[in-house]
């Protein structure tokens, strides 16, 4: 399956991977090979097979609705490069005007 440069750049953007122009063509080749493998998988007749959403044939264990975690703020904030007034600081983000 052929990928356009535009599609490749979009995929890279969605994954937040910085792809430079030089590596574009080799990366494209690798991705196309992977997609070809999926095409091959798609050839198998699965009309009689139920979809599998997890390889383990088990049911998810659950926990009771109880608060077990204390206030960990001071410890957790220590991991962050920049904090203020108990908040993690990140580069300014405004999505739309939300």
């Amino acid at each position: 399956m052929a990928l356009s440069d535009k599609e490749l750049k979009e995929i890279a953007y969605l994954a937040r991977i910085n792809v430079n122009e030089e590596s574009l063509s080799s990366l494209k080749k690798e991705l196309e090979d992977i997609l070809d493998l999926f095409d091959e998988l798609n050839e198998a007749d699965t009309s009689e097979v139920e979809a599998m959403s997890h390889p383990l044939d088990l049911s998810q264990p659950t926990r009771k609705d109880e608060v077990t975690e204390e206030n960990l703020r001071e410890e957790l904030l220590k991991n962050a490069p920049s904090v203020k007034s108990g908040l993690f600081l990140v580069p300014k983000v405004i999505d739309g005007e939300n």
Partner: protein
Amino acid sequence: MKNYSEDWEAVIGLEIHVQLSTKSKLFSGASTNFGALPNTQACNIDLALPGVLPVLNEEVLRMAIKLGKALNAEINSPTSFARKNYFYPDSPKGYQISQMDRPIVEDGYLDIETDKGAKRIGVTRAHLEEDAGKSLHDDFEGQSGIDLNRAGTPLLEIVSEPEISSSEEAVAYLKSIHSIIRYLEISDGNMAEGSMRCDANVSVRKKGDEKLGTRTETKNVNSFRFVEKAIQYEIERQIHELESGNKITQETRLYDSQANTTRPMRSKEFANDYRYFPEPDLLPINLKKEFIEEVLATMPEMPNQKRERFVSQFSLSEYDAGLLAADKDLADFFEEVTKVSNSPKLSANWIMGELSAELNNENLSIKESKVTSNKLGQLISRIEDGTISGKIAKDIFEKMWSSGKEVDAIIKDEGLEQVTDDKEIETMIDEVIANNPEQLEQYRSGKDRLFGFFVGQVMKASQGKANPKQVNDILKSKLEK
């Protein structure tokens, strides 16, 4: 904006996010309390530190099953989680755990009522997902502040079929969902605090057209009134655009409640692609039959059932019963009052009349009423047993409201017992008639409407304490003589 022609019809679907009132988060044991100091209720799992795994809170399954039942829907088993991938700083994992192919609730409906009658709205699905944290864009030296207290709080997203045709229907549907989640006690439904959020998908088309028009999505409208206004605005805007020969752009819009308009959010370079895939950290969930039955056994009486019971048990009108039953606290208060007063109709009138007026006046909820259900019941029973008239009762109610005193104490202190003694009333009537010979003359020569004048004079003479029915009867017989 001018009124649009009758040729158009609107097609509306709502997505309602309901924050579930669990103690702990969807996948972690951190607290979900509202209003805590930033980041004091976020743990390793909420922050997606390396090596952590989500563990599902069992209570959310119970809550979703109850909602599914109330929406006449299927409960899917197995139900499974999926990853919705996007990057945003208030979502530390880089994805949101949500549901895609097998939502826990699917294929239900809800019956709503508007002025135009009853209508059934299909509910496509309701799925579990986690909430994001909050970004604060105040000035932190050019940076944004992130509070992850809300990250991982459980949400149920309830998606309707595009079967809603007006802003009135949209609000009726939203209120009905609100009423249900409050009855089930699965959420406090507080729209101002964001416990219930509504996104509206709106498109318009010419009546009779098969094909749907291009739709817009209006996000996060935070009150019933604004939902109605935002949708109404959006319908009129789209019709106006189309009638002017323009096209509708598929986009996300924000409602501005100050200006009562919607405007587009800045559009991204290309559409988001969330690249959903099955959540590898969580197994599918098999809901055992016994578990579902155990949950369903705890279902409370729902608003529609309560309304019907109020009609049959208390002979209330459909309208009164509907108003009372829509709010669980109000319905409980009514039943408590009725238990004391033994008069359902009068109790309903007082609750929706005088009591509601005072509550609205002071912006109080029914639970904060200054006159308790017990005291209001006593007041109404004093009207019923003839101790006081309805008119005096209103004065007493105001005194009860401001002083917190009981009805009997006020009646005794102020000598407000109703005059029901025929002799006493006759004496008052004789006096009024004697003092108004001119009016008597006119009345007897055919001016019937002067009857009201005499009633007024007698009531005044008794300081409002005479029993009105007796006054009417005795006065009539005296005047006809």
